[in-house]
């Protein structure tokens, strides 16, 4: 029984991955360094590796900087519209980068809404796009929900007695935060940093569209080798290099997270109503977020409504919506038990290995599927999309659950066993209730990844299928940017609604 999740990963992740990178590291006479050496000696490849790592570090830092105050507000205060704020902040995660980019261009562009407004009141414009500033802006927009949600969920579960003890010992304000609260949040901060880092590390489209041609990542290199130069050996070797980097970084972050982790009781602090300074903080934060998040989203919405009538083309929005929801729901059904089973893993090395799907490009994995399973029924069944999405998304669920599981104090489980509970009922009656919130947070990200994922499923599935991102791309390839924006809007509204429902469930659990 315990082997099932590992067999699942072996068959549907490590095997196809091996098939994808094999041509890059295996020559006619076994293991070869030829292709790796060829890549690593190129100054272009050195440049993109260096850039990929440094931009990921900078973006992670920035996302944490923006996400942390958000986490504080969400965890400690009750305010009207909180659920909606959470839902909207997660929306950019779902939308294909081309639509996000369109929103950015419409809003922050040299001739965008913001600049036209600034010009009209006689101020100089801000030119953020097509430079490194565009990348930072985009990564902040994309990734701050990760730390905001993961840290706030941990913060909500911090045992209040430690802070009380700190206060009794004379600590207050920032000193209390720095010496008592912050260390206890460290595992959640590390977990969200790991996810953010790897997400920026794998970034492809958004960086290129908003940053410009100089800012190519390793992903771009793999894409070029696969689809422009058609050199699978070099593509495999570069994917291997990417995987090694991902593995090392995740191992490093997870081992530091483990060193920092504490056990927590299941007690929860009461959420306070807003004090005046906090109210100002919330207002400031919300207005900043509305500019950053709502600006581009509303620009897309406005753009989609101002266009001429949609020409009749072969895109069926309702079918796309149905298929997307079907797939995302099935992906949830697979990832929840899979991640629960895997979350017992405590070794950082195994943890990093289990998180590896995040650090492997979707394109590499999809091409691995084609090699590994070509000729089987799998590639002509919708199941392959569900499987690929599950593999690409479960690390979020896994991280969310295992971060929560580390916080369950062993004594709680021992007491349950002493009281005569078998392992199933310990799980069902003690662990599961404590993990439920993390499952819901993981579910938000899993759902988001599945709804927005495009390239992997598209490449591996050898039949025509419609999902919402596919519909968007079909509109785009037909010059029909307004319908694409409209479909993007539908995708955002549906996912915001799904996130809102998940948020409601989270709230019900708490009350």
């Amino acid at each position: 029984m315990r082997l099932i999740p590992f067999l699942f990963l072996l068959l549907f992740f490590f095997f196809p991955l091996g098939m994808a990178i094999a041509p890059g590291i295996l020559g006619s006479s076994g293991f070869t360094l030829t292709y790796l050496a060829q890549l690593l000696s190129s100054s272009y490849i050195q440049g993109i590796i260096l850039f990929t790592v440094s931009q990921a570090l900078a973006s992670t830092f920035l996302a944490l900087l923006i996400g942390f105050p958000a986490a504080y507000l969400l965890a400690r205060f009750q305010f009207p519209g909180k659920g909606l704020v959470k839902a909207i902040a997660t929306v950019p995660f779902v939308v294909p980068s081309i639509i996000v980019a369109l929103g950015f261009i419409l809003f922050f562009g040299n001739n965008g809404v913001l600049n036209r407004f600034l010009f009209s009141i006689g101020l100089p414009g801000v030119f953020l796009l097509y430079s490194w500033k565009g990348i930072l802006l985009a990564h902040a927009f994309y990734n701050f929900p990760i730390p905001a949600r993961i840290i706030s969920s941990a913060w909500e579960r911090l045992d209040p007695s430690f802070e009380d003890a700190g206060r009794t010992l004379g600590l207050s304000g920032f000193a209390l935060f720095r010496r008592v609260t912050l260390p206890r949040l460290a595992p959640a901060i590390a977990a969200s940093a790991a996810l953010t880092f790897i997400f920026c590390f794998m970034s492809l489209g958004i960086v290129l569209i908003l940053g410009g041609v100089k800012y190519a990542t390793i992903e771009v290199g793999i894409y070029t080798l696969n689809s422009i130069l058609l050199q699978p050996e070099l593509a495999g070797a570069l994917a291997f290099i990417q995987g090694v980097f991902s593995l090392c970084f995740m191992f490093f972050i997870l081992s530091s997270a483990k060193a920092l982790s504490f056990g927590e009781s299941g007690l929860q602090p009461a959420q306070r109503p807003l004090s005046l300074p906090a109210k100002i903080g919330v207002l400031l934060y919300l207005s900043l977020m509305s500019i950053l998040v709502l600006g581009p989203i509303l620009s897309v919405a406005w753009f989609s409504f101002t266009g001429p009538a949609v020409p009749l083309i072969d895109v069926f929005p309702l079918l796309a919506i149905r298929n997307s929801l079907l797939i995302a729901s099935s992906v949830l059904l697979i990832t929840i038990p899979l991640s629960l089973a895997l979350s017992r893993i405590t070794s950082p090395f195994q943890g990093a290995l289990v998180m590896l799907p995040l650090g492997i490009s979707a394109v590499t994995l999809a091409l691995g599927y084609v090699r590994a399973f070509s000729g089987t029924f799998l590639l002509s069944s919708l199941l392959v999309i569900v499987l690929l999405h599950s593999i690409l998304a479960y690390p979020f669920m896994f991280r969310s659950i295992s971060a929560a599981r580390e916080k369950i104090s062993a004594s709680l489980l021992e007491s349950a066993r002493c009281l005569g509970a078998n392992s199933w009922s310990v799980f069902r009656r003690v662990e599961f209730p404590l993990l439920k919130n993390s499952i819901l947070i993981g579910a938000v990200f899993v759902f988001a990844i599945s709804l927005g994922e495009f390239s992997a499923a598209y490449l591996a599935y050898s039949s025509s299928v419609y999902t919402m991102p596919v519909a968007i791309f079909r509109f785009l390839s037909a010059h029909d940017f307004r319908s694409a924006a409209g479909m993007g809007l539908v995708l955002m509204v549906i996912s915001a609604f799904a996130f809102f429902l998940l948020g409601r469930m989270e709230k019900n659990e708490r009350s």
Partner: protein
Amino acid sequence: MRRLFFLFLLVFSIGCISTEPKSEAPVLKLYAYDSFVTYGLSKSISKFEVQCGCKVDVATSGDAGSVLNKAILEKGSPQADIIVGIDNDLLAKAQKEGVLEPYFSPNLDVVPDFLLFDKSGLVTPFDYGYIAIVYDSEKIKEPPASLDDLLSPRFNKSLVLEDPRTSSPGLAFLLWTIAEKNSSYLAYWKQLEPNLLTIAPSWDAAYGMLTAGEAPMVLSYATSPAYHVEYENTTRYKAASFQNGNYLQIEGMGLVKGAKHPALAKQFIDWMLTSEFQQDIPLTNWMYPVDPNITLPASFAYAANVSRPVMLDAQYLDANLPAWLSAWTEQTAVWLPSSAGQTVK
């Protein structure tokens, strides 16, 4: 509430597995690039389905390069019967990889000589088009007339190109500069730099900047203006025809080696050269049909009037592409820590 949610999940997943299309008729499988099916070409394909008594399943996977790459990966057990979209830039690759079977259709006599780009018969041409600079005529009064004119200071920061590492029109533009400037193409790109607003990773990202009013000029197709006339009834967007000609793209389809339905596939290739399919190409694929006898729709009068096709020899291209691309990358796109703080042109 929660039970309902899980019930909903369960029903959905069962639905997911059971919605596979089931059919008794033989299924002809096409691998195609995205936009092949976008505009309603499937309607004209259904005419073929009636004739052959079969089903045609078109699976798309990104651009033509990705499609060919997928077919190469499946060489051992091919899934597709026909690969659609192999153009002159990909031809040599397709010939070398041995994924196709030669087939000379009896209907090939409608195709003019300059479009018969594969003498080995592996790829049968079905349409063609040209790459062109498309501009917003409300902002650009004096459009560029040649690659050299594109360097004029009046276009400072006005042009959006596509990245040849990630986009096929982007690659075509690089090849265009190589075809015209030969070994001095890198110098040309250096001179072009001040006029570039940015280089986008894909055609849609670049064209979006034109549509959103961000950039007045973008690299696209000579027929792009026809779309805006046909569906938006506006002549605002125009395509520039260059004095020395525009880069030609011929698209073809090929019979897959080891295909499950070779006879049907040949029948399909024959059919797509008939006027029944050819007449649908202009408004469904925004390219020119290879059959010159087809009457073009009125909106095509707004496409750029190309003076002469620019092309590169397929073998020469294949032998040099990796070197060209890396030389271009070294000059244009290498990121070094010292340049991190500078704004990219």
